[in-house]
Structure formats: C-alpha cells, structure tokens
C-alpha cells in the first residue's frame, strides 16, 4: 500500500517542489461581503418565506408556553398515509406507525415541558439518556412517528435549519442554548437519527438564532471545534430521480415543521 | 473609413455572393473596402482537429495578410471568433507573435458586429418579406459575445417577421470537421435544430455562419422541408435591392 509519505511526495514532486510542511494561509483577494438584512424580524420573515418555498412548514409562536401544544397539534394533524411513513419491513407503506415520538434531551428543548404534553395527548416520548444502549435507541428512533429537535442556528437566505450532533460553539455573545463558546457542550442527549429516521421532523427555532447567509455560519463554526456531525437541512427529503418528477420523503423525513419562537 | 475584407474559405468557395453583399453594403455606407492578397483560411479546421502547428501557420498567414489593416471584416462569426479567441493561445505568453495575435484579434470583426458597434448602422434600408429565425453560431455568441447585433439589424428589415427560436444557444451540430467525423451525431443535432425551427413556422433561417447554414440547409434539402437558408449579409443586400426596386 502507498504510504502517506510516498503519496504526498508524489504530489509535491508533480507540483515541482519538496513537500511543504504546512499550507500557506489562504487569503482570498477580496473577503466575502456582509449581505442581507440584520433585523431579527426581517430574518425570521425571510427564513419562513424561503422554507415554505421548499415545502417546509413554519409555525410561529409568541410564547414558550405555546411550544408544547403546537407540537401536539402537528403530531395529531400529521398525514397518515404517505410513502414517507413506510417502515422497514412494511413495504407497502400502508402499515400503522406507533405512537412513539423521539426527541433530543437537550437544553434547547428543556424548558417547554414537552414530554408531559405529549403523554397527555397519548404520545409516548423517548429520549436518549447517558448510559442507554445506542443501537437499541436507534432501533426505537426508526419505529417512531416523529422526531423533535432544537435548532443550533438557521440560515434565512435558504430556509435552512442547522443541527449539530452536539451543540455548536463559536457564538458571538452568549446566545441561549447554543452551547458554550468552545463548543464542548454535552453531546449526550441528542442523536443524529432523531432528525433523520422518523417520517416527521419537528424543529424548534428561536428568532435570534437566524443568520442571513451560510458564510456567517461557517465563520462561527470555524471559531470552535466542530461537532462530529453538523447538518444544514433545507426542507423535507426529496428526489427527482424518477423521470425528473419531484418526490418528497425519500430517505429522510417527508415532513418538516419548524416552530419559530 | 477603410476596412479590409477577409472572405473566409467557405464563402470564397461556396458563396461568393455573400462577399459581394458585404462589399456592397459597406460601400453603401461610405466605407472603403480592400481585399488583401495572400489571404486563404483562418485555420480553424486545423486547430479544431488538433493539428495545432498547422493552425499556427494559418494564423501567421492571416496576421501577415492583414498586418496593415485597421479593420478586418469577416462574414463569419465563427472565423472571427477563432481569430480573436484562439490566435493568442497559439503563441507563448510574452512573445511578439502573441502580442500581434491579440492586436489583430481586436481589429477583427464579424460583419454585423462591425455594422452596429463601429458604424452604428442597424437599418440598412432593406425590405424582405418572410418569416425568419436567426441562428447564432456558437463562436459568435460565446467567444465574440455578439448576440444582439444581428437581431437588431434584422428587426429593421421591413416585412420580415423575426420569430423567436427556443434554446437559441444550442449548437446545430456543424462543428467543422465534427460534421464529417461524427456524421450521425452531427445529423441528429441538425434534426433537433431544424425541427425546432420548423415548429416556429419560419420559412427562412438566417445566420452569420456559412458552415451552420450549409449543414442545416443540406439537411433540410435531404428532408425536403420548405425552409430556405440565407446568410444575413445576403438577406440585407437582397432586401436593399428589393426596397429600392
């Protein structure tokens, strides 16, 4: 097998020099411009408009107390027969989905008393706790009707929510629920699959978490260690692989609801 | 004003009337025209087929023949594009020949480009009844970036209905030697183009490239379609005569 040394030596040789130890800093001839509106409301409006264009649903709530009832309402109204709901082992997509709802156990969701509201409405909330078996958790996530997560940030320009496998660091100021500045927030109670496997995804977003464009977010990410996974999710899963015909909910969730607080 | 005419090998061999039309239109607008000796072909066939050294010889020939010309007018967007866009590439950076190539490219114009941009003439006073589409060739639209000029001239032609062609950017499949080396693909592309043109209801294809016109016209003739092909200079000159007559 080729060693790192040989591989890099060949590249360097082709480039006509001896291997460099570290790359020179890259400074683009012009820095990226600051763009878009700054105001919280303008960003929220733009985010909503863009997300709705790509089949996402935005629920505006004004008070923390409205979050849990909104979640229950979304769950109760979620469409029943949809290819997005078909489960492994149920290849017609017509089987019943359990009453399980998985959610992050995370400070982003702590204050809304979600579990109690879910239980009262007949849903069974599940979250990962330290010490639980990961494999078993993923199996439960796979059987769940919906996943509930908190957003680490959002991008108005494209209607994108940003989810880390652990809290993102690097926030300017001391934004609530955005992890500490070094990005070492507890990873424990989240889980990548919560936002991925269930047919319905519900994400809680606070207005002040919205930035206009991705460059702002990348600069923030660069200020702290990266979580093991960060996703930008823009609308529900989609494919146009069959005769260029758009279909929603191929591998990921077929429905994306963002509760905007 | 004095200009030099580069007739192009295609027009010289197959469509001398196009050269005559260009000449007469230029004269009509008070431009003096000369026809430098020693001109043959821009060398595009050699370049495009990978005979790069041969193509350089043609470039040198052109640069020599037109060394003293202030404006060089061609009835072909493709050949003019080749001169302006590719000649500089043929010579090493910093060389004298590269400088010459860049300079001669700047002095080289496609016919409608010169009429509109340099002379400021859009209306030559032509009348030409018909339903036409304009086919812009690839080098002309992408390398010379000449798109609007021929359309502006055609819009001024009385009784000519200029129809919108969908996907005007799409190549018709001529491509020089490509049309002979890959005749099946080339013909499939021609059919697409001709079908799109027929669907507009046009009875006339106008272009500033004889290669594209030969290719489309030749296909049209084999298919027996009622569509005529005409070089833009020829249309304008015929139209001037019709209007005067």
């Amino acid at each position, binding site marked *: 097998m080729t060693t790192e040394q040989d*591989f890099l030596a060949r*590249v360097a040789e082709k480039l006509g020099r001896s*291997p460099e130890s570290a790359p020179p800093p890259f400074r683009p001839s012009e820095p*990226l411009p600051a763009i878009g509106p700054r105001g919280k409301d303008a960003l929220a409006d733009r985010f909503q408009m863009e997300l709705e264009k790509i089949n996402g649903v935005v629920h505006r709530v004004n008070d923390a107390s409205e979050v849990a009832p909104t979640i229950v309402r979304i769950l109760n109204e979620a469409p029943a027969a949809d290819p997005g709901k078909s489960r492994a082992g149920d290849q017609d997509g017509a089987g019943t989905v359990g009453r399980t709802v998985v959610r992050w156990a995370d400070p982003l969701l702590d204050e809304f008393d979600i579990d109690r509201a879910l239980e009262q409405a007949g849903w069974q909330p599940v979250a990962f706790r330290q010490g639980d078996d990961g494999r078993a958790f993923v199996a439960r996530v796979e059987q769940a009707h919906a996943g509930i997560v908190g957003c680490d940030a959002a991008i108005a320009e494209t209607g994108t929510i940003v989810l880390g496998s652990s809290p993102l660091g690097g926030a300017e100021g001391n934004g609530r629920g955005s992890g500490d500045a070094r990005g070492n927030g507890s990873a424990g109670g989240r889980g990548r*699959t919560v936002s991925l496997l269930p047919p319905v995804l519900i994400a809680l977003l606070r207005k002040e978490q919205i930035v206009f464009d991705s460059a702002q977010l990348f600069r923030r990410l660069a200020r702290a260690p990266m979580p093991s996974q960060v996703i930008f999710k*823009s609308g529900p899963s989609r494919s146009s692989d069959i*005769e*260029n015909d758009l279909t929603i909910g191929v591998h*990921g969730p077929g429905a994306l609801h963002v509760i905007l607080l | 004003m004095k200009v030099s005419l580069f007739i192009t090998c295609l027009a010289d061999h197959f469509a001398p009337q196009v050269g005559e039309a260009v000449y007469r239109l230029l004269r009509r607008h008070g431009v003096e025209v000369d026809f430098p000796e020693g001109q043959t072909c821009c060398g595009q066939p050699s370049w495009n087929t*990978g005979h790069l050294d041969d193509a350089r010889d043609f470039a040198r020939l052109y640069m020599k023949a037109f060394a003293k010309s202030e404006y060089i007018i061609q009835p072909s967007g493709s050949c003019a594009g080749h001169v302006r866009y590719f000649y500089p590439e043929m010579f090493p950076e910093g060389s004298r020949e590269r400088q010459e190539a860049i300079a001669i490219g700047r002095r080289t114009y496609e016919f409608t480009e010169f009429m509109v941009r340099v002379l400021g003439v859009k209306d030559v006073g032509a009348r030409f009844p018909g339903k036409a589409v304009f086919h812009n060739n690839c080098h002309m639209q992408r390398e010379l970036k000449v798109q609007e000029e021929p359309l502006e001239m055609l819009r001024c032609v009385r009784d000519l209905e200029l129809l919108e062609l969908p996907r005007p950017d799409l190549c018709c499949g001529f491509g020089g030697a490509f049309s002979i080396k890959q005749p099946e693909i080339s013909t499939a592309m021609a059919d697409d183009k001709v079908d799109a043109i027929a669907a507009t209801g046009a009875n006339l294809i106008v272009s500033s490239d004889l290669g594209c016109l030969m290719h489309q016209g030749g296909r049209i003739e084999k298919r027996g379609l009622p569509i005529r092909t005409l070089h833009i200079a020829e249309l304008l000159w015929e139209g001037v005569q019709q209007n005067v007559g």
Partner: protein
Amino acid sequence: MSAKTPFLERVEKALADDHLRGAVRYTAENLYLKRKAVMADLDVLAEKGEALGNFEELRARAQEIKRHTLAHLDAYLKQAAEQIRKNGGVVHWAKDAREANQIVLEICKKRGAKKLIKSKSMVTEEIHLNQALEAEGMEIVESDLGEYIIQLARETPAHIVIPAIHKTRRQIADLFGAVAGRELATDTKTLAGFARATLRQKFMTADVGVTGANFVVAETGTLCLVTNEGNGRLTSSVPPCQISVVGMEKLVPRLEDLAVMLNLLPRSATGQKITTYFNMITGPRRPGEPDGPEELHVIFLDNGRSNILATQYQEVLSCIRCGACLNSCPVYRQLGGHAYGSIYPGPIGTVLTPLLQGFDQWDELLQACSLCGACAENCPLGIQLHKHIIRLRGEAVAQGREHPLMRTALKAVHFAWTRPGVYKFVARSAHLGVKPFTRRREDGSEYLDNLPSIAAGWTNSRTMPAPARKPFHQRWAELQREEGAK
C-alpha cells in the same frame, strides 16, 4: 470508413434508441433551464446585496479557492489528514483503484463486515468498488434512488447527478417489481415509497456505510456531503462504520470557503438554491453520543490525478461534479451517458477520462464534441473544457491517433492553403474536380451529393453546396472594375 469501433457502435445504439433520447433530452433540458433561471435569480439577489455574489463573481472566487488549493495540494492533504486523525478518524492513501478497493476490503474483513450500504458517489464508480466487493462475496447496496435503479439494472450511471436519467417509470417499476416479487404501480409515490422501505431495511442492518465527499475542509478535516434524499446522511449516521473514498482534489482550505461552493454547486447541478442536506462530518461518533459510526475511515485517492497537476490541464481538477456541462452539452443531449463508455460522461468525461486513463481506449471520446463551448460557459469553475478538448486532440494527433484519410485530407489542405497561389488555383478548379457528384436543381442551381470516401459522412444525410465556378477572389477584380467605371 473502416469497421465500426466500440465507441461508434455505442453511438449508433444510443441514436437508434428514441426512448433514451427522449428521456435524456427532457431531463437535460429541464435541468439546464432550472439552472439558468436560478442563476438569473442569483444575479438579481446579488444586485440587491442579498447574495455573496453573482454567478461571475462567485465563479471567480471558486476558481481562486481551487487554484490556491491545487497549487499547495500536498500541504493541504497533509493538513486534512492530520485533522482527520485528530478527530478520531483513520486516513488511508491509495495510489490507484486497486489499492483503494483493497483498503475497503481489509477494513471490512477486520470488522467481519459483510453488508455495505453506499450513498451516491462517482469516485466509487470510478474505482468499480461494487464489483471488487461483490467478487469477495460481500453485499453492497446503492442507496441513492437513481443509483439503486441502475444497480438493479446492472448498468453504470448515465449522468453524474441523475444516474437513471435514461430510465422510464415503467422500466423502474419492472426493476423494483422483480425485487418485490410482485407488480408495482408506476406512479412516483409508489416507486419512491418502495425504495425507501426496502433501503431502510438495508440501512438498519448494514455493517459499513460507504460515501464519497463533495468537499473536504483541510483546516478541520471535515467531510462534506451534498444530497437531496438524505442517503448521504443515513450512510454516515446509522451503520457502525463509515468509509469515505475521496478524490485527492476535493479539498478546500477553510470552512468559510464552503460558502462559495455551496452557492454554486446546487444551483449548477439541479437549479436549487441549496440541496435538502448539506452534511459536515468531523470524525466518528464521540463518547456519549447515541449514534453515528464508531469508526471513520477516509481514503484519499490519486488514480491518475497527480499526473494532471502542474500541466495545462490542472484546472480540470477543480471540477465539483455538478453536471452542468452535461446538461448544456448538445452532444450529451443526443447520446446520454452510456455511449461515452466512460464513468464520467459528457464534456468533463471527455476531458477527464483520457487524462486519468490515457488515450488507448479513450482517444475517440475527443471526437464527441462540436466545440460549441456551452460547457465552459456553464461551468461553475469556468473550466475551459472545449479548449482542453482541442489540446488533447493536439496530443492525440501528435501521437498519430487519427483516421488516416482525415489526416491526409487535413495535411493536403494545409499544404495547399498556406500557399496563396496554390489556394487560388484549387479554388478556381474545385467545381471541375467534383463534377461527377454535381447535381442540378429545378431552378438551375447546383449541389453535390453522393460524395466518396470520408466526405460521404456529409452527403449521406445532407446535400452540399457546389463550389462556385467563380470564387469570390475572382469576383473581386470585377467588382473593382465596376467601381472604377463609376
């Protein structure tokens, strides 16, 4: 002409398949128009100060990023590798396809892995990973809907972004029906639903997930996957081990550079402002996290890429595989991807394939181009693909790779036409030389038909104008006399 080469046979087959041509034309046109519309929107947004730049500006930025990265590629690779290791990943180096496949196999053997699931990746097509794994008795399942379709059909992708561009819903229903063991309806919902359910099972039981990477950020060792369906995210979230095969040119220096790329890639590929998923992976699952792979392996692949460095073709390595050149190519539009016979079809394939694999099998691809330049115009990195095709033709001709009759004809033209006296003589006598092939129309005008030898390629499907009895340069003298007489 002599016997048909395999390439020409494929071309013939594609051109005879109306079905395929209709499907390819429809989708390519659709993608082309969507891209055009979204780029026009981008220009408007940039004007309003609501985008990082218009297309031209972003393209210039992207070029600058890639130019810098490629110029220091060894150092960026080293930095990326160090970061990946720091994040807990394992880095491997493969000089060719065989080594890359071997590395994947060894990782699987060590883990006792038998079942793999793969997200959409062109580089694993390039190294024929599926065949290598299947030969060792492993199961590897494509999870991108389009890739899954062509895997069931035992084909290769016909497009780098839309692999099943050529398949109709009827054909797809038949392929899926064979897996289901019953007939399936042909509506998109049923077909996509079936694929979701079937592949979900595969995901849940896979031992290893295989991905490529659209970008790798050197400063953090972050792998980026751009998808719409979520297959990339599933592959990197559910199986206990992730292996990413990455072409060594995929690096960008900094996270911030992704902003430029992310503005260009989805717009160029599918006409979207952004894809549904942009997934950044920085190391395996961390302690306390419930899911994600326990092991993350990154295989950097050369496979001929280093031969392109520091040559006139270097910018070809800045390609981000968006497929815009395919969608705008008038030849691809006629043929679809399979006629090319290479993994990467269309303009980028025409240039990249001979560069990676040499001329022996691939010099003919260079002829599948009319040099219209639409590819370069639409390329988000501004790669001058048509210029590279000319350069490569130059190399091929220099090696004598050319049809002998074509060579003779072009050399004769060069000899005659670089001598103005000879040129004139030939031009004046041309109409005599073609007399046997000259036909007369009803209106008395003349044309050529049934030309011999290589010229038959033209006249089989098109008539040809007859050479003028008096070429223009002869007419010129008359025009001058006329002028003088005035």
